């Protein structure tokens, strides 16, 4: 026998690695990312290209400071996933230092200060996003109008100028504009829903222009993850069901008091990204199947409440963080029954 090390049972393993799971998640982001680039220009891709190496550098530094094996930790791809999710969530017009601040908060504060992968109570990408939103609301709401809405999309040079923090020759206002959710909220109470819908240049074929395809892309990616059994259906389905239910109740048949149709809510803003990629982060989600149903529904309800009654146009990040905070409570009340024992 070649070596003297004893191993404990089981001596065989299904050779699946975390890195493999994370790679599948990255792959599943591709359709949504493609739609974002198509409708909103190069900004998201620039965010991504900037954030991934930054995240790896920060991860290495944090792991090294914590005196852990750097190579093993980098191989789990979790930092890359955090960077990609943050890049997908951030507006495509951010200067480099702001997104760097966001990823630093995500990796260093939200993850490593809490003990690293597996120990963080809050989703790192969403923590980074939420802190930026609180500190720099102007920058964080500077979205672009989607391709096809009448305004020109910034080219690669303009996008790079945004990234470097320089004002483009034509000025910011030439490109930026309110998102569908934002403009809908602004006019709330003034028009009938249908009237608003028919006149707004931001309406698309069934939901917000551009965003409907971005969300469709993330939905596709989510279905891929479900098919690959990387995630289970419980969280996304209960999240989307709760959001749909609230939207149905408050749609108010499209009156001037309407808070938006279910299709608008499902396919605008960060709904699908949140439902399939963010809320399903296993580290920060509820553990039992029943708990996951509660957790998803809770997040769906808060997304709707934030969109409708807060001063923010979207609420996925805050909803996910609220859900994270509720996890210990949900877990305590949804413990599954053990074999042969009463529940």
């Amino acid at each position, binding site marked *: *026998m*070649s*070596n*003297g*090390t*004893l*191993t*404990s*049972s*089981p*001596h*065989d*393993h*299904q*050779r*699946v*690695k*975390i890195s*493999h*799971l994370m790679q599948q998640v990255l792959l599943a982001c591709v359709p949504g990312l493609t739609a974002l680039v198509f409708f909103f220009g190069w900004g998201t891709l620039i965010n991504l290209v900037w954030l991934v190496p930054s995240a790896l550098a920060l991860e290495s530094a944090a792991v090294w400071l914590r005196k852990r094996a750097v190579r*093993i930790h980098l191989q*789990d791809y*979790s930092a890359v996933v955090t960077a990609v999710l943050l890049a997908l969530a951030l507006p495509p017009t951010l200067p480099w230092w702001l997104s760097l601040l966001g990823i630093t908060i995500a990796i260093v504060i939200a993850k490593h200060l809490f003990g*690293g*992968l*597996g*120990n963080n109570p809050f989703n790192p990408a969403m923590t980074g996003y939420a802190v930026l939103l609180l500190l720099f609301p102007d920058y964080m709401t500077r979205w672009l109008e989607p391709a096809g809405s009448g305004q020109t999309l910034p080219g690669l040079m303009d996008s790079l100028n945004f990234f470097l923090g320089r004002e483009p020759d034509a000025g910011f206002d030439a490109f930026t504009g309110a998102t569908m959710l934002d403009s809908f909220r602004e006019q709330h109470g003034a028009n009938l829903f249908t009237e608003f819908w028919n006149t707004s240049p931001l309406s698309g074929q069934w939901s917000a222009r551009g965003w409907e395809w971005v969300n469709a892309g993330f939905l596709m990616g989510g279905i891929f993850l479900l098919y690959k059994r990387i995630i*289970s259906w419980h969280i996304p389905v209960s999240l989307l069901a709760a959001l749909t239910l609230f939207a149905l109740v408050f749609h108010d048949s499209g009156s001037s008091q309407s808070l938006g149709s279910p299709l608008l809510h499902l396919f605008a803003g960060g709904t699908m990204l949140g439902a399939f990629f963010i809320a399903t982060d*296993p*580290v920060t*989600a509820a*553990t*039992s*199947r029943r708990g996951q149903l509660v957790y998803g529904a809770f997040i769906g309800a808060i997304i709707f409440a934030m969109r409708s009654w807060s001063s923010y146009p979207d609420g996925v990040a805050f909803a996910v963080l609220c859900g994270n905070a509720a996890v210990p409570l949900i*877990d305590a009340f949804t*413990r*599954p*029954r*053990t*074999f*042969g*024992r009463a529940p």
Partner: protein
Amino acid sequence: MTAESSRKIWPLPGGVYVEANKAPSLRAPVTSPPLPHQLVIALTQPASISPILCAAEGDYVLKGQVLAHGSSDAGINIHASTSGTIIRITPHAVPNTSGEHELCVILQPDREERWTRMAPVENFTECSSELLYARIKDAGIRGLGGAAFPTHAKLVGATNIHTLVLNISECEPFISCDEALVHKYLNEVITGTQILLHASGATRCLIGIEDSKPAAIRALRAALSDPRIELVVVPALYPSGAERQLIYSLTGVEITADTLPVEKGFLCHNPGTALAVMRAVIHGEPMISRVTTVTGAALAAPANYEVLFGTPINELLQLCGVDNENLSRLIIGGSLMGTQITSAEVPVLASTNCILATTHEELPAPLPEQPCIRCGFCVPACPVLLQPQVLYWDSRQLALTDATSHHLADCIECGACAYVCPSHIPLVQYFRAAKAEIRIEAEQVHIADSSRQRFEFHQARVHAEKVQQELRRAERAALMKPAPEQPLEVNSAQATIAAALARVKAKKLEQALSASNNTKTDEGETKR
């Protein structure tokens, strides 16, 4: 003709699909290996029982002669596996988990195979249960599923057995000894099952077999004619062959780890045990051998052998053409629940169901442990519906109260969770460590409790004696004292009050004493 059931199957609540690796060892039928140069017969007994020798060094013994028996009724008779001379009786390494040496008889075979048998039973259906139990005990039969629990101890005291379960659901991916045994000894196994049915008083027998063994299913279907015996095919899923899991699959009855299946009326046996029962009753032969799978990629010719207890494992490996260059690990039992051993200089025991000589290519070394990301893959894998990722946190932090309230004690250590873990966390190892911690803590609490009880009992007794003494003194004093006129009444009244008080006190003490006695017996019962 056969009692093939359209019975409902209760799907295992968890489990993992693990690709079987049984074909290499099933290529040839079961044969007996040549007699080894020396036999090392372990005298291992169940916990807290010690072996009592019936033979001495230098004695010539016959095949089937008793070498040792247990120090109590729950002990096991150990027989000579062949005829020959006892060279030595000495502690020797055996393939166990603790690594502790066990007292062994080293036997030099004379190659004559001279038997001593017990009287055969003509017609077992006319025998009483007690007689059959006694025969099973005399024959030293223990369970061949891997735990080697004495069969008679399982039977005795089990009064309301309604179902006998024959477990041919061999779910460990490398082990094929039961399947091979059923092919070779089909009718013998069925007869043994009928004896067990008769002895236990069970009204039916359910044979649980995995759907991955079509040949064995066909053979059983053709051979079964007893209407009490029902063949039930269960899906091949690890660990479908675990005792409580199989009972659930067959009947839907859930039995927790702290309840014995016999308490619920189930008696679960392995086909090897049934064969041994048949041999003991019909032929009068004690249990001296078992069918063992010798397999793994480090062997040129894996096979199932009917091996005499005490056969050195290295001789079996030589027989199968072991490639020592490529041998990476030697495992007793399967790849999922087996125990790794460091030396092949150990004998085959009743619990040795498989010897797995594997290579790095076949079973690579475990990958480095990574953080738990609570992905929850382990949850649907757990056959007892635990949340391994939660137990992992409890175990790692030695949060023993939490671990207990999350039912760590119900974990059967099947390793399905660790098998699927993408972070390669040796979960079973964590769980075993936490269970050991809990056991140690419970023992310490028990020791502290009993010392406190002894102390309190002692104090109460001393106090009671003192009170009695005072009482007697007061009484004596009252008698001795000459009766004064006036104050007498007061005094005697005082004395009466004092006496009454003392009586009350004594009574209270008595109650306290009997109460503490009661708690003691209560504890004795729960400890059981």
